[in-house]
Structure formats: structure tokens, C-alpha cells
């Protein structure tokens, strides 16, 4: 295959990426604006970052969000990995169609429906809306994303490795932790990160399922955006973008390094 880029290809890639990145770049630039107006440049300043850190409400919301995201991503990763194993390893069990439906449907389900239905569940269970209910809601919708990420890795997994381990006398549990888990670990880590950022970002489901005292950062940002665009929100957004970007790139680098290491090991093993 001759992989040469035509002029049309280059133009569409460049325009496409400009479209994807320009709004974010502009948002970041204007977080350093001296002026209170978001769209008129008044000189460089970091005063909005100072204002942000002094805003107690914002900091509280950030802390709530971080805790919700950490707990829900961790639980969702365990549940999602189990769901992925169930879908790839057990092709026949009663209710499998319903199960795979429940794993895939939340990926596309409009958030207003998920949020409303979970809220009504919590109310009928008699749970007070707050930290616990947001966390439960986030576990539920993020575990499906984890399941899909891990499942795509499990599909390409070479099962003869597991069979070899069992032939050599390893128990299924030992085989899972010593053979399967290390191989699918990169997928599990990216699943965790996806769950973490989805929880970090969620406005709609959190608005339905959260109560007083558990205002998350997106809810805070949303209520301020409704009042008008300010450089302080730009600063908050910039910081969030920075955290997520650093995390994603770091994970990609680590994954890459592991991959290279694994290939080297495999080659060494083949040479004997």
C-alpha cells in the first residue's frame, strides 16, 4: 500500500485539528488575561489563578469531585473488568443478552435519562442525596466504559498462555493474577483513567443525584457559567485540562515503555 498523503488529505487533517484545538487554546490564553472581559486582551496576568485558589466554594467542590472520581473510578474498574471477563470468557449463561445490553446501553444513553432514573431509585430506596449517591451513580455509568476498554484487550488475548500456566499446575486464580492480569493491565489502567475523567467531567448525572453538601466542580462551573463568562472559570478549566492532559500523556508513555519492554522480553524468550 502506498501511504502518501494528497494535498486534500493534509488540508483536511490540519483544518480538522485546528477545529478541535483552537477553542481550547483560546480558552487557555484568556485565562491569563488581565482584563475582566474574557474576549478582550488586557495584558498577561495570573491573578485569576490566585482568585481561584482563594475561592473557598470552588476549592470545596474540587475536593468533593476528586474524592468522588477516585472512589467511583476504582470501584468501576473492578466491576467493569469483571463484566469484561464475563462477556469474553463466558459465552453461554442465562441472561447473557440482557447482560451485554446493560453493559453497552449506558454508553449511549442520554445522561438526563440515566440521571433521572438513578435519582428516582435513590429516593425510593430512601437514600439521602449526597456524596454516596453521586458516587454510586458514577460507578454505574463509568463501569460500562471500563468494561468496553478491557474487553477490547481481552478479545485479542492469547488464551494459550493461560492454558500453559494451568498445565504447569497454576490454579485458575493464580493464573489470573500472574498471567492474565499483567497482560491486560494497560487496558485496566486506561479504563480507570477513563472512568476517573468521566466522573470528573460529569455535570448532568451529578446534578440529578447530588444533594446539598456534595456540589461537584462541574456543577459549580455550570452555575457560574450561567451567570456569565469570567476569566476565573477559564483558569479553573485550564487547570483541569492541564491535569487531565498530563495524566493521559504520562499513561501513554508508560504504556509505550511497557510495550517495548514486553517485546524485548518476548524476543529474549524466543532466543532462549
Amino acid at each position: 500500500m502506498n501511504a502518501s498523503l494528497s494535498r486534500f488529505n493534509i488540508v483536511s487533517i490540519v483544518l480538522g485539528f485546528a477545529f478541535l484545538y483552537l477553542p481550547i487554546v483560546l480558552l487557555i490564553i484568556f485565562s491569563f488575561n488581565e482584563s475582566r472581559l474574557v474576549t478582550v486582551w488586557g495584558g498577561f496576568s495570573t491573578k485569576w489563578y490566585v482568585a481561584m485558589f482563594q475561592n473557598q466554594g470552588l476549592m470545596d467542590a474540587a475536593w468533593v469531585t476528586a474524592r468522588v472520581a477516585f472512589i467511583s473510578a476504582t470501584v468501576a474498574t473492578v466491576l467493569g473488568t469483571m463484566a469484561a471477563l464475563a462477556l469474553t470468557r463466558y459465552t453461554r449463561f442465562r441472561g447473557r443478552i440482557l447482560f451485554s445490553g446493560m453493559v453497552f446501553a449506558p454508553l449511549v444513553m442520554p445522561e438526563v435519562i440515566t440521571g433521572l432514573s438513578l435519582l428516582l431509585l435513590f429516593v425510593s430506596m430512601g437514600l439521602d442525596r449526597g456524596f454516596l449517591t453521586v458516587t454510586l451513580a458514577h460507578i454505574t455509568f463509568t463501569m460500562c466504559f471500563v468494561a468496553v476498554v478491557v474487553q477490547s484487550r481481552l478479545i485479542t488475548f492469547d488464551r494459550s498462555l493461560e492454558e500453559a500456566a494451568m498445565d504447569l499446575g497454576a490454579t485458575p486464580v493464580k493464573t489470573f493474577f500472574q498471567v492474565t492480569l499483567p497482560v491486560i493491565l494497560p487496558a485496566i489502567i486506561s479504563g480507570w483513567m477513563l472512568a476517573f475523567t468521566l466522573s470528573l467531567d460529569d455535570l448532568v448525572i451529578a446534578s440529578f443525584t447530588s444533594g446539598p453538601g456534595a456540589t461537584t466542580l462541574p456543577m459549580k462551573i455550570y452555575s457560574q457559567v450561567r451567570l456569565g463568562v469570567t476569566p476565573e472559570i477559564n483558569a479553573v478549566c485550564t487547570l483541569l485540562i492541564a491535569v487531565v492532559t498530563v495524566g493521559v500523556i504520562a499513561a501513554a508513555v508508560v504504556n509505550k515503555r511497557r510495550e517495548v519492554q514486553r517485546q524485548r522480553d518476548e524476543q529474549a524468550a524466543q532466543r532462549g
Partner: protein
Amino acid sequence: MSNAALSQAGLPAGTDAGPGTKLLRAVAGRVVIAVPYLWLLLFFLIPFVIVFKISLSQTAIAMPPYVPVFDLSEGIFGLFASLRELSFENYLWLTEDALYFNAYLSSVMIAGASTFLTLLVGYPIAYGMARAPATLRPILLMLVILPFWTSFLIRVYAWIGILKPEGLLNQFLLAIGVIDQPLIIMNTHTAIFIGIVYSYLPFMVLPLYSALEKMDYSLIEAAQDLGCPPTSAFWKITFPLSLPGVVAGCLLVFIPAVGEFVIPDLLGGSQTLMIGKTLWNEFFANRDWPVSSAVAVILLLLLVVPIVLFQNAQARAQEQGR
């Protein structure tokens, strides 16, 4: 454990697993299936049943603001009593007030139009990525995925500053003299289209890219050698082969876009009718839980067909990957 014990004792650990191992494996299998299954039943399926139930109950000024339809503690008699009292009032209400019908219609139309626009924008990008040198592709892929990781709310918010009447786009266009009056984009359908195309573009590009990347481009060369012009080669070969990606991408954009709340709320202004926004207002502003549940039930019915299509596509992809 028995196999490990056997091999430690110097005995051959055969391929036939001992009864203990088999039992352990069966138990592990049960746990792996049962735990996520029960979780999803409790937190995904049962909530829908509750939504359906509440959509059939009456509004009340209380907390929670509805009259419960079926009280479990009353057992079977409660069930009969509640069946007599089931009210389709909320659904009748939805048909009587044109607002809801218009909101559904305009949601589907806005979502449909923006899905098409996303396809138009996304296809050339995905095609360019698929034709890029293999060394460049992972980087391009990463660049498409990266914005998806940054907050949806932030990305929508970023457009407010650009599209406002005194925003950056108008400043730029006025400065270079293309226009002499600021364009009114904010709070129009155009702003919603831009918002949806922008936010959902990665969902379109990724399935398109994975379909186009697998394609054998020598087919096109062969067609061109045989005198087929590039445009008709595209429509006769490239596009049909990328159809699974087109379908997956369109469903991934269309389904969530129909029920979208953030984009119409922040970019569309108060004039926009979209069902996700109507549901939100019914719930948060009017505190009418039964009516918002009825809105949700109908929205779900509207999306059943595309969601089933999406699941079938997923299941098929899963089978092929095996």
C-alpha cells in the same frame, strides 16, 4: 489447589483439572458474572422500571412530589388497588401540550442534522488519518482522542467566548473586514450545530478511522488503472467499505445528541426546544417528577431502535474480533 499440590509433590500435573480446580473455576465464573450483573440490574434496569412506574403516578405537592402508585407493603392487594388507580394522565398531558411534541421533533431534527454535519467534517479527517504514514498514525489518533478526555462542559464553554456577538470570531471577522455587522450565532441553531459537531467529532472519527484503516487501497488503484475516475471510485469502493464505521459513528453521535442538555442550554439559549432541556426544566424548575418521568419514557422509546442497532453493531464487532 490440588494441581499445585500435585506438581509440588513431583507428580505430573495433567491437563485434566482436578475436581477442586473445577469447582474453584466454576465459583470464580459465577462471581465474575454475578457481581456486575446484579449491580447493573439494581442501578441500571430497576431505575427504568421505577421511572416507568412514576410516570404513571400523579403529581403531588410533597417530598417526593408524587403519589406512590404501588406500595410494596400492601402486597398483592396493593397491586390490584394500584392497577385501578394507574393514570395515563401524564402521557395525555404530553399529547395535549404541543410543547412536548415540538421538543421531540426538534430534538430529532437537530440531532439528525448535526450527525450528518459531523459525518461531513469527520470523514475527511478520518480518511486523511488512515492514509497517513504508519509512524504518524498513533500520534494523530492520540490527538483525536485527547480532546475527548477534557471536560465536555469546558469544551462547550470555550465556544461561548468565541461565538458571542462581541466574541472572538466576530472580532476577527470584523477586523479583517469580511463583515461589518457582528454575526448573531450565539443562541441560534447554528450554535447548537457547532457545539454538537465539535463535542462529538471524536466519536465519529474513531469508528470511521478504524474502518478506513483496514481497507485495502490497492482496490482503488486497480479501479483507477481500469479507468475509474477518483470520485466514482470513492462512491463505489471506499464509501461502501467504510459503511460499518459510518453506521457506528452516526449512532454514537445521534443517540446522545437527541437527549443532549448542556449544549442546547449553554449555546442555544432560552428559545431552543430540545427534549433533554425540557426534561431538565420539568424536573428542576417545575419539580414535576411524574411528567419528567413520562418525558424520559417517551425519549427512551424513541431511542430504542437506534440503541438496539448500536448493540447489534457492537456484538458483531465483538464476534469478528474473536
